[in-house]
């Protein structure tokens, strides 16, 4: 009885129940869990309120779709508004699917399949966010699908073939130019609907003939008239977010193919046969679980990716404490799982009989321990430099260099080159990366802002004004532009401004011709540790010390150390410098440290470290890292011995 009632409820209110479920899940995921991601997506797009931008965007095939998508993308800057708009559009896509394809209330769960696929498409983007060539990508699939399906619904209402044929033709032509592949799929769908409806053979043939002609020739004509598409096959795929070749995941491509196929396949939908309550409910639950599970599994859920984005946003806001907090929080979150992983590894390692067996074991456990990415570590170090605590806190945070869990590694240079270079006092290199990014992937809020800041620091106010003129015409960033413009109007304010002061202190070097070969960490190490200017500022030597410590190179340390003591106050020597001096002085006797006034705490921790080491032989860095990190994680000794072979990219 209860099952039958449940079935009746689902049959009658299923659509609304599923809609509610969809709304809650999507809104919570985007608006709360992934709100930083939405902000980042917005920063990688640009919508300008002027006619030139409209013409530039719209006057290319599928330009209208891009324009509307970009318009909506700007609202992601306010994640709750952006999530609401996206949720409503997803709901509308389900609703219009149900209406356009006459999906019965009983089968309404089918109408949510496109929405789930759209979620998967967006959620699987991952690091390709940095190499997107369609900045409005987030709304493109949902808009393209929803508008095209609305066209299916509209044209399907036309009963007379005399009117429906011109409608199909007009839709195919204008729809394709505006929405690309979604319009082609909708044309196929509506042709099938009209074909099925017609009883007269002539009308059927006419519908089929005109549809096929326009389906084939519209893209072909477009290809011949445009200079923006490189091949005929690509002309048929216009409207799919354009990613750099090789950067999209297979999930992205598969979900897209299914979405287009579904749009067409639904045109032959027939209500599913009646089933008994248990079977019906079982099937409904099964489909629902598949939906939820697919969306969950296909979503790019890498914690480092999420953390990097949040840290990046915090840097944009000069919120340096937040940058450190994010790093700390994520490391702390995994401490228990790390301990468990260590216990398992340790137990197995104890019974490993040969080095080869131990190696295999280590290989197996790789990935079981949490490890931050290089970008996170560099963000954290930068934040500590800004807070002035890097010499006493840099190693209090988990270190590492986990490679991105993505198809192809996106270089740090592309992700945050401009941020690191700008804040480390290399605005010309920051500008260079802004421009490289803009050329490859288009101008966006992010690169315009950093290009502006770079130009203000280099005194290129004319170019800075050009960028600000663009930001002035945005909805969410005109205030930022107004704030920054005051530095161009009154350059004397730059020296006093908090955000520029620390950067200016690092710009004390003479110009040279150089290249970073797109490997930022290596370049910054070289810049700070080997290119010391004659008039180096105390801040330059401080930052050089941070990089010198990271190199784990004894000679580099002593060289930078001797520079440091020339320009900085040596009354209170920072802890890590003392630890490094003590360690290096004992490892290599190249510098006499016997007269150095080490703090008692430093001497004690060094003794403790040595005592612990003598009682706990290190069979392998990987096996011993965890217990050492628990006791000595916040020391330079631990960093020197246990953070090794890091990969930068």
């Amino acid at each position: 009885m209860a099952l039958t009632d449940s079935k009746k409820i689902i049959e009658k209110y299923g659509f609304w129940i599923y809609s509610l479920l969809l709304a809650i899940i999507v809104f919570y995921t985007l608006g709360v869990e992934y709100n930083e991601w939405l902000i980042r997506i917005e920063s990688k797009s640009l919508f300008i309120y002027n006619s030139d931008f409209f013409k530039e965007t719209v006057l290319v095939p599928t330009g209208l779709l891009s324009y509307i998508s970009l318009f909506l993308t700007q609202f992601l800057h306010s994640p709750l508004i952006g999530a609401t708009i996206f949720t409503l559009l997803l709901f509308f896509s389900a609703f219009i699917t149900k209406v356009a394809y006459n999906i019965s209330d009983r089968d309404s769960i089918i109408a949510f399949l496109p929405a789930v696929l759209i979620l998967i498409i967006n959620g699987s983007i991952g690091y390709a966010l940095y190499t997107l060539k369609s900045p409005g990508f987030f709304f493109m699939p949902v808009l393209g699908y929803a508008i095209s399906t609305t066209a299916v619904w509209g044209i399907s209402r036309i009963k007379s073939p005399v009117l429906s044929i011109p409608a199909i033709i007009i839709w195919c032509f204008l729809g394709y130019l505006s929405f690309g592949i979604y319009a082609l799929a909708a044309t196929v769908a509506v042709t099938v609907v009209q074909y099925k409806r017609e009883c007269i053979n002539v009308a059927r043939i006419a519908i089929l003939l005109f549809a096929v002609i326009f389906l084939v020739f519209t893209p072909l004509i477009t290809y011949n008239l445009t200079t923006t598409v490189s091949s005929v096959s690509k002309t048929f795929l216009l409207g799919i977010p354009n990613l750099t070749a090789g950067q999209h995941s297979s999930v992205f491509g598969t979900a897209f193919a299914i979405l287009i196929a579904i749009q067409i396949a639904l045109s032959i939908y027939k209500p599913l046969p009646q089933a008994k309550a248990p079977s019906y409910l079982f099937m409904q639950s099964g489909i629902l679980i598949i939906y939820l599970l697919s969306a969950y599994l296909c979503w790019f859920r890498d914690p480092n990716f999420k953390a990097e984005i949040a840290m990046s946003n915090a840097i944009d806001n000069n919120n340096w404490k937040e940058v450190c907090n994010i790093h700390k929080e994520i490391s702390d979150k995994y401490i228990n799982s790390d301990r468990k992983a260590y216990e398992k590894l340790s137990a197995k390692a104890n019974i490993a009989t040969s080095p080869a067996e131990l190696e295999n074991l280590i290989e197996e456990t790789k990935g079981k321990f949490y490890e931050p990415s290089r970008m996170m570590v560099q963000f954290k170090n930068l934040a500590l430099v800004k807070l002035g605590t890097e010499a006493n806190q840099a190693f209090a945070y988990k270190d590492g260099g986990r490679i991105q869990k993505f198809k192809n590694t996106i270089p740090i240079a592309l992700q945050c080159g401009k941020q690191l270079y700008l804040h480390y006092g290399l605005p010309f290199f920051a500008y260079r990366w802004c421009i490289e990014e803009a050329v490859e992937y288009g101008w966006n809020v992010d690169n315009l802002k950093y290009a502006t800041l770079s130009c203000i620091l280099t005194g290129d106010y004319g170019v800075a004004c050009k960028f600000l003129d663009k930001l002035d015409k945005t909805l969410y960033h005109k205030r930022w532009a107004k704030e920054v413009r005051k530095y161009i109007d009154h350059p004397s304010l730059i020296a006093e401004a908090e955000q520029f002061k620390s950067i200016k202190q690092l710009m004390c070097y003479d110009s040279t011709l150089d290249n970073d070969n797109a490997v930022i960490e290596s370049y910054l190490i070289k810049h700070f540790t080997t290119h010391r200017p004659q008039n180096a500022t105390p801040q330059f030597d401080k930052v050089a010390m941070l990089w010198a410590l990271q190199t784990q190179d004894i000679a580099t340390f002593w060289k930078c150390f001797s520079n440091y003591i020339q320009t900085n106050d040596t009354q209170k020597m920072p802890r890590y410098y003392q630890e490094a001096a003590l360690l290096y002085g004992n490892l290599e006797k190249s510098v006499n440290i016997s007269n150095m006034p080490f703090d008692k705490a430093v001497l004690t921790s060094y003794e403790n470290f040595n005592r612990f080491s003598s009682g706990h032989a290190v069979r392998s860095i990987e096996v011993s890292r965890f217990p050492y990190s628990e006791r000595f994680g916040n020391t330079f000794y631990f960093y020197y011995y246990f953070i090794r072979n890091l990969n930068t990219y």
Partner: protein
Amino acid sequence: MKKITPYILLSFLLAACTANIPQNFSESKEATEIFPDFSNITIPSNIAPLNFQILTEADKYVTRFSNGSYEYLQSGNTINIPLSKWEKLMANSNKIEVDIYSSHHGSWVKHPTFTWQIAEEIDPYISYRLIPPSVESYERLSINQRNLTNFEETVIYANSMVQHDDNGQCINCHHYKNWETDQMMFHARQYLGGTVIINNGDMKRINLKTDSTISAGVYPAWHPTHNYIAFSTNKTRQSVHTNNNNRIEVFDTESDLILYNIDKNSVSIVENDTAEFECFPAWTPDGKTLYYVSAHFDYGFGSDREEYIVKNHKSIHYNLYKKSFNPETAAWGKPELVYDAASEDKSITLPRVSPDGRYLLFTMGDYGVFHIWHKDANLYLMDLQNGSTRELSEINSSDVESYHSWSSNGKWIIFSTRRDDGGFTRLYLSHLGEDGKFTKAFPIPQQSPDYSTNFMFSYNIPEFMKEPVSVSPKEIASFFKNSETIQANYTKTVNE
């Protein structure tokens, strides 16, 4: 009553929009600030309307254009002159006067009149490369052509048309024979690269790199009377300034000159002194002399040559040379030093001889070969009759002036400059007077006055054309995809 109401409303609306010269106004000595700065310039008689924006703050504006016999009024601070009105203003006149009136709190002010002197016609078309001012990336590059008599702009060829996944193409210099587009060429490198030569409808893609030459042809100069193209061949590198507003340094580690014989598909050496970096060939109108620049560099052939140049890039100075040439025998004379820029710690690039052979226009900066990134680069004019040279202070700015070319009648030049904002290259025109002086330079007019402010590409390699390129972009793209590259043959040079 109902029927006439809309007409009454329309009349009010029209009256509100119609510009009238204010009856009462005071004269101001303060000139209005307009963008682009079109005040007091000499313009070609066939140029497109000079639309501009009035930047001076006011409540209302009225602008009056008059050629003495016809006048046109427009209100508002964005001046967009309809083509029909513009044609009337330009017809049978030698001068247009522009009066701007502005209103502040109800009182009108008339600003000083500025004039547009109308001079000889200009070639109706220009072509240029649109390029982002980046170091390495070139996702979107195109050669476009612009009708200077209106605002029509079309693509001649774009690299997006052949891009295949990660395989991109970089489009390099383009050039025409005697400003006519039935004989044109451009070079594309990397994916499907080669030198495309369109010779009276016959399109070929040539590989000009031979075992005896450094590279494919780089900077071209089509011989005015014969089917030769002189090129430089270069091994070009670039590096980024860490703390210098010139931002990027592009330099050659090797550089020679070659001559390509189109009919024989053969390449021969013009200059390949190992101690010299020869570059930028330019023919005289009779085709009997080739001007070029060359920097002396006798460091040798060590493996750290590039590193050495990077460190000493500021000491590389290019002088101006010329060489006689016999077009019939393709025989060369000896190099002659024309201008010793190195002795002045200067460096010359981009020599271009005027169509009448009287003047030689070139760019000169403090050092190096790639002046588009040098803020000290300026235009200079050499009078070939008496050998005197002067800096063109009347058209130079405090920022970059670089690539330039002469119109076919020799009355106009177009040149690239970064004077607008310091970062994005824009094209400016200037008229050469009978006295050998140029008039105030002005940017090529755009439909929307703030177009160049919003546009995020740089214009470079501007070349005048007498007519548009007739080969379609699709034909060129299809040619790239479907044609085979023809290998040029190497032949020995004939010396006099």
